[in-house]
């Protein structure tokens, strides 16, 4: 029988199949760990006298509570408070006690958990990958079944390398056509979420398909899969292809030599069969997608940047959201004054994102009164960006060039916006207070964020580039 990619991944990982009474026992190939959602799980193991079953299939980093400023001359990090430091120290102790590899601050491989997994070649097609973090969906870009779990489940995987799972439904998101110049993967995924709604994917695993997806780079595919959870889907998948294999070849943990050839041969089978049936399908034409921006308090409330804020038609939750955001139905967002621009997060902190932002900011200055934070997703990216000189572009413009961390996406490390402030952010959540209590977040791609940085207002970056071309 024809199978979807999800079904193939599901079947490969069944330790015990599901029954009416019992969920399936699913084997997990890789668990990623960070400081926020792991301490209580380690405590469960300690309380029960259990070990981590497969320390070699468990990899830790620190990213949420870590400062985005470097240590001082004595090597002391500027933690936001004692709790943040204690949480980071706890992770160090736990990894030491349970024998888990930790990519700690200052180390060559530290970074946002969903950035370093792929970078190190830990994320591979066909794997099941979990992390106590909802943006684990990122890794699905490689054809891995990857999803976020709670801390109780983190403990389950630590102790047994397995999870109890009910089989998800499948949702095919088909993207025909091709993204137009000036339109990014972030715009694509915001358009998808705007179409399916913030809970359109609940209970489903999304597979992104079609020529517009095939044309994306690996980094762009990660941006797309990253935000699957913002449409309610725990996981997003893209079938692996030559783009995937080229990205992975030679990475530290990727197979080598004969094992590589065998792996690629196997990975090529990880596609949905031609006549496979999905529980649901939606269709979008990438030709028609424009640069997107959110106007409300969930990522489904997104419009083309040239459109007007839709009429809430009296719907109470939407009225509340528009009021919180300080936007008016029927009005354009273009020209709205901006206080802060954040370029970073597991959605948009990779090299191609930084290059896209730098292209807009090159030779320009940050507008008066605007604070701009550029936070690379990993040490590797930071170093590479500096080799390319991107940091000069940001620093010369007047932006802050920070250390790898989640930073202002989740505002746990002291990087945050103030109540009432307007931020254009390349992160993934515009929830009330997400970037700081009372703050207003407008989600967009790196070019749109950079355009807001240099103009001080919400701006269609395409018009900016036209101006630039016209004056050459």
């Amino acid at each position, binding site marked *: 029988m024809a199978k979807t990619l999800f079904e193939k991944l599901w079947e*490969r990982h069944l*330790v*015990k199949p599901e029954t009416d*009474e*019992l*969920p399936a*026992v699913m*084997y997990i190939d890789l668990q990623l760990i960070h400081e*926020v*959602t792991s*301490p*209580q799980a380690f*405590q*469960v193991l300690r309380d*029960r006298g*259990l070990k981590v*079953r497969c320390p070699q299939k468990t990899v830790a980093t620190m990213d*949420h*509570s870590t400062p985005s400023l470097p240590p001082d001359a004595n090597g002391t990090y500027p933690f936001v*408070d004692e*709790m*943040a430091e*204690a*949480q980071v120290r706890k992770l160090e102790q736990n990894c030491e006690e349970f024998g888990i590899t930790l990519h700690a601050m200052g180390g060559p491989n530290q970074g946002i958990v969903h950035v370093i997994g792929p970078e190190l070649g830990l994320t591979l097609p066909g794997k099941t990958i979990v992390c*106590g*973090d*909802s943006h684990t969906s990122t890794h699905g870009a490689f054809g891995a079944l990857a999803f*976020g*779990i*709670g*801390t*109780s*489940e983190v*403990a*389950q995987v630590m*102790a*047994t*390398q*397995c999870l*109890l799972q009910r089989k998800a439904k499948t949702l095919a998101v088909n993207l025909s056509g091709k993204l137009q110049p000036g339109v990014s993967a972030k715009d694509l995924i915001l358009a998808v979420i705007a179409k399916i709604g*913030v*809970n359109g994917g*609940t*209970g489903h695993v999304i597979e992104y398909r079609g020529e517009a997806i095939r044309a994306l780079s690996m980094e762009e595919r990660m941006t797309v899969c990253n935000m699957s*959870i913002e449409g*309610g889907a*725990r996981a997003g998948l893209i079938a692996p292809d030559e783009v995937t294999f080229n990205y992975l070849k030679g990475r530290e943990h990727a197979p080598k030599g004969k094992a590589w050839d065998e792996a690629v041969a196997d990975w090529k089978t990880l596609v949905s069969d031609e006549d496979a049936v999905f529980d649901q399908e939606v269709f979008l034409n990438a030709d028609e997608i424009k640069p997107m921006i959110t106007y409300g*308090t*969930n990522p489904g409330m997104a419009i083309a940047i040239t459109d007007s804020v839709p009429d809430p038609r009296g719907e109470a*939750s939407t009225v509340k959201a528009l009021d919180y955001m300080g936007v008016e139905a029927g009005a354009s967002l273009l020209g709205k004054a901006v206080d802060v621009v954040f370029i970073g997060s597991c959605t948009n902190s990779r090299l191609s994102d930084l290059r896209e932002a730098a292209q807009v900011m090159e030779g320009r200055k940050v507008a008066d009164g605007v604070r701009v934070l550029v936070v690379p997703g990993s040490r590797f990216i930071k170093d590479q960006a500096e080799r390319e000189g991107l940091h000069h572009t940001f620093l010369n413009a007047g932006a802050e060039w920070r250390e790898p961390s989640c930073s202002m996406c989740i*505002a*746990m490390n002291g990087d945050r916006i103030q*109540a009432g402030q307007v931020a254009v952010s390349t992160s993934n*959540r515009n*929830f*009330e*207070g*997400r970037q700081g*209590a*009372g703050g207003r977040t407008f989600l967009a791609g790196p070019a749109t964020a950079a355009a807001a940085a240099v103009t001080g207002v919400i701006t269609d970056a395409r018009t900016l580039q036209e101006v630039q071309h016209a004056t050459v």
Partner: protein
Amino acid sequence: MQPFKQFSSKTVTLPVDNIDTDQIIPARFLKVTDKKGLGAHAFADWRYNDQGQPKPDFVLNSNAAKGAQVLVAGDNFGCGSSREHAPWALVDFGFKAVISTSIADIFRNNALKNGLLPIVVDKTFHSYLMEQAGQEVQIDLEANTITCGETSRSFEVERFARYCLLNGLDQLEYLLKSQNEIQAYEEAWA
């Protein structure tokens, strides 16, 4: 864990759709390394003003909310982050059940592991519960029913999670008993 069978409680209502886990517990309260006392921060940004004083017009600060163990909220409750701190905070606040027309996947899974029953009901009954804010409801997990006044509905809970709740068991125990199968799987796929 305590077995979860049936209980009665008045409701408290939050008629807002898409309440995300950042609202249930803002990220700045996630720097803890244990689970204790998170109820103090439940809905912190809706509950307290800039000076940390309770906002009198927020429902969870009202007398009506005191002792309420059932939260009736708008559609797609618990969307967003995977933080289990969200159900920890709600349970610590005193809730034993949350009711909505839909509940986000990760939140639902987390809630079920912490003795917080996620109940999905149809729109008609949901509207009725919203109108009957503060009324007593009877929730019976053995019968899978929720009753408010003369009106009753059945609800569905994943069968194994329900079994664990009814018997006060936790799922890790079951996984630990699957060691032989896990080992066989590892050997087959090594």
